[in-house]
């Protein structure tokens, strides 16, 4: 436990030193909110976007670089299991996303006088599941694509269309029909739905179950395909 806490703290510290992560997970959603003049209806989507940026935009390249630069190999010679490092990465990504999200929600309410979330507990649960799911998908990308640049690139190529087609960046009703249909099959779509429902206070369990299912499937696939070296 001591080792895990130290690892997770170190990973979070490293993340906070990464200007790109800080910008995209904290500053960028705030900028979008300002452009939307504090429209609280857009906020649940932005929360999903924060999670997707961390888990799919940043995590695959990070994991691949740890493998490519033999950080994982070095850790494998210590008493800790390298699996612990993956867990620490997950905790750090979720914590960073949570920090960015809390800031976004607080600014929405206090600065723009937006409506407060209807069901805070369900909103938190939806965010956690959404963030863990994004990390699990990022893990699969790092398992399939071996080198660092490739993993970063594929992460971005998966993440960007997904945040536009799932309703995270723009509402899905604003999309043409065919694009909206693609969104039906994207894992981020139920996450946006779950966050939106919790925000309006009409939270349902079903989208959360879908997210949990995707987490289990993606983690199993990632674990089967991931190579430490």
């Amino acid at each position, binding site marked *: 436990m001591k080792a895990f806490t130290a690892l997770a703290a170190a990973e979070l510290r*490293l993340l906070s030193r990464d200007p790109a992560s800080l910008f995209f997970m904290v500053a960028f959603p705030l900028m979008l909110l300002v452009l939307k003049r504090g429209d609280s209806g857009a906020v649940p989507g932005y929360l999903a976007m924060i999670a997707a940026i961390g888990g799919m935009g940043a995590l695959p390249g990070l994991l691949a670089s*740890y493998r490519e630069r033999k950080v994982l190999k070095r850790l494998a010679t210590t*008493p800790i299991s390298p699996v612990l490092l993956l867990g620490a990465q997950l905790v750090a990504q979720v914590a960073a996303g949570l920090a960015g999200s809390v800031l976004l929600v607080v600014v929405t309410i206090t600065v723009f006088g937006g409506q407060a979330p209807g069901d805070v507990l369900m909103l938190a649960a939806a965010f956690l599941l959404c963030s863990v799911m994004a990390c699990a998908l990022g893990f699969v990308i790092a398992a399939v694509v071996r080198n660092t640049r490739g993993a970063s690139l594929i992460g971005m190529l998966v993440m960007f269309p997904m945040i536009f087609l799932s309703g995270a960046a723009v509402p899905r009703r604003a999309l043409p029909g065919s694009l909206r249909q693609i969104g039906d099959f994207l894992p981020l779509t139920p996450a946006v739905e779950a966050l939106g429902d919790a925000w309006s206070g009409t939270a349902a369990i079903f989208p959360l179950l879908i997210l949990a299912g995707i987490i289990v499937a993606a983690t199993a696939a990632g674990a089967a395909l991931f190579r430490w070296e």
Partner: protein
Amino acid sequence: MEAIEVTDLRKSYEGTPAVDGVTFTVRTGETFGIIGHNGAGKTTTVECLIGLRRADAGTVRVLGEDPARRRRALAHRLGVQLQDGSLPDRIKVAEALRMFGSFYRDAADWRRVMERWSLRPLARKAFGDLSGGQRQRLMLALALVGDPEVVVLDELTTGLDPIARRETWRLVGDLRTAGTTVVLVSHYFDEIEALCDRVAVLARGRVEATGTPGELIARTGTASLEEAYLALEGVDR
């Protein structure tokens, strides 16, 4: 008492043998050198010793344990410096030492290790900003932060300037004085000659000869360990 016993170790990669029947023992408290040219099987042997690879055949015992089966238990008593290991660029020297210290059951005081390896002035420097020699020094300190009984050092001083090399030699000498068992993998003969009690010469995945540097020199009728190695390898001088 033997700290390490390797008997008829074999390991192939895709049908090509990297290690083809290696046998040697390392006594407790001794500094043992493994020399050989690139591709002789040094790193594969080391990776089997520390449990990163499972041998195809033969037995490996480190402190009486099988590293392939008991890697994590053994890791508490083992310090490793890998030839190619590294750290995230943005981690700071003091953070890395403290974090690695937290992995071990009976770790040394990481501040003292930092002091001892003259890393204090670099405590707040990021790994990515360190020079090659500074990185090497940090990786060595990380190998010792768990207060190990056996230390495995692969390519100890590669990339170090002459002053840093001598300083590293002195610190490895201190380990021997303290009774720590050291396995030193290198292709620098002066280093092996200066530091090691006994040496195994590896070639084509086998142990060509074992003995003290003095014995190897006497046996080949040469003047230095390097010449003894070349004679063992059948290279004309």
